[in-house]
């Protein structure tokens, strides 16, 4: 789909396009990619935390930072709990912050069900850890100005969330 970078380092914007998103022409852009491992609870939250630090350094309004951090955290936890592992791409231009979460499986059979508050396919041991309350995707949507999911069973899921700046 797009090039991944193990260290979350920026890649040359010319080489990368977030899944399906059109790149603005000559505007400065920042792109960073973060790998997230399946069931890697020790590192869970680190991608969201790094994304937050980057946005803070960019001087973004506290509210934008907060919403993006929450969306990134929910995306990251979804990758940890439900996917076979994947990555989160952070794309920042002068108009918006975009988060693209990509994985290669297992995919969702019914997206509208997944978007229902309280619906979760998380196993019991995850729920016992306090996750899997079925609020992840709805929460992510609530924090975003635009939100979309593409998913195919057996192929993977791409969740795109954008937050407008100012």
């Amino acid at each position, binding site marked *: 789909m797009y090039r991944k970078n193990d*260290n979350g*380092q*920026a890649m040359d*914007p010319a080489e990368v396009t977030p899944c399906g998103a059109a790149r603005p022409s000559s*505007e*400065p*852009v*920042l*792109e*960073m990619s973060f790998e997230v491992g399946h069931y890697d609870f020790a590192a869970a*939250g680190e991608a*969201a*935390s790094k994304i*937050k630090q*980057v946005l*803070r*350094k*960019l*001087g*973004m309004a*506290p*509210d934008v*930072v*907060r919403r993006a*951090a*929450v969306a990134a*955290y929910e995306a990251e936890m979804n990758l940890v709990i439900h996917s076979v592992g994947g990555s989160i791409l952070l794309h*920042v*231009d*002068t108009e918006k912050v975009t988060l693209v979460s990509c994985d290669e499986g297992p995919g969702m059979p019914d997206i509208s069900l997944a978007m229902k508050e309280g619906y979760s396919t998380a196993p019991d041991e995850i729920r016992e850890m306090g996750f899997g309350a079925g609020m992840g995707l709805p929460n992510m949507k609530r924090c975003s100005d635009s939100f979309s999911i593409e998913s195919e069973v057996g192929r993977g899921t791409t969740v795109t969330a954008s937050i407008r*700046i100012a």
Partner: protein
Amino acid sequence: MESRFHSVKLLEEKCKGCTNCIKRCPTEAIRVREGKAVINAARCIDCGECVRTCENHAKTIIANSLEDLREYEYTIALPAPALYSQLERASGPDEIVWALQEIGFDEVCDVSFGADIITECTRRHLMSFPKLRPVISGACPAVVRLIQVRYPNLLSHVAKVESPMYAAARVARAEVSSRLGIAHDRIGVFFITPCAAKVTAVIAPLGSEKSYVDGAISISDIYGELITRVGQHGAARPVYRGSSFGFAWANSSGELKALGLQNVLAVDGIHNVLDLLEEVDNGRLAGVDYIEALACPAGCVGGPATVENPFVARARMIEISKAVEAGSDYALAEAKQVVDKYGEEFFALQGELAAVAGLAIDPRLEVAIAKMSELERVLARLPGLDCGACGSPTCRAHAEDVVCGHASEVDCVFKLREAMEEVAEELLKLAKTDLPSLQRRNDK
């Protein structure tokens, strides 16, 4: 209320440029340039972590001295409860009050009593406070400054009450003024401080329009004067004395014990505070009602202007709290009376806590984005050892300094080695070049 005053200062002649402080600074405010530490005023929160870290004592706390008492007709010392944990030889709090009078103060008012007042106000305040949770204690000015610099989202969570120091200053000044008929501005009120952040709070208050305290004197600066006077069995009473709960504020969890609430949490040590506030900022502590956060390890007893080991001081503080228990009920009732008399508004935080900009890489978004992209590229080329030899605390901080034009990539010793290797290889190549005059024809 934008203020750039800082009580933490560098003594250049003592600084050896060792880079220990840059690694410990919670806001990455320090760099070593030209062999000396340089503090970025916009980022510094006066937590005093560098004062604690520096083995050469090159970081100091600029505070008032006993000389400054002369400017006033009448003076009141406001000892932080932590002071009482510092003097092992003292037989009890009254002996320390007496020693403070011996070194030049006319009277003493315990800040532990201010703590009792603020405890009462916080309790009432929490009842009327909007649903926003958790409420974060505003008692530690270094923590409040950290929130202003790094977590502006959380400013609305800070309890809207003044600090115990202010409460004590206001009631002591009013009492002395009415009893002796001395004008308010002729009375000098000095806080005896365990830390740098409180000095800054006295000179540049966090929220208040004006400071109700006239100066701050470091515990470490008058320690010598006090230690020679305790043990002589002198004794004196303060204008107001706090309860055992008020005294316990000097230790971590002390404020929580005084409040006696459920769903509370205490954290101490500025790096622990940073981690915890990050959690709060991420919205993951919504079930907690109240957070006590203190910048120093073990609480105020571990302040950078104290003398004792913080854990020894903490143990002693517990003993002192027990020693004053007999007068506790009286002190608590008196604090309640004071709050009833003046009203909670009197002790409410004056003015708004404003965010302090200082972290952004550039104020213009498009420039910031371009710099950030460049930063990541520079960072990818750095070794990632975070050794600090370049004078920046981490490779990431160095990359930021490079893109902001404050440093050069080859300030990194590893980048310098690479550059030298390239030059050396070039030299070797040149050295092996055959000169035309020396080339021999192959005659065979």
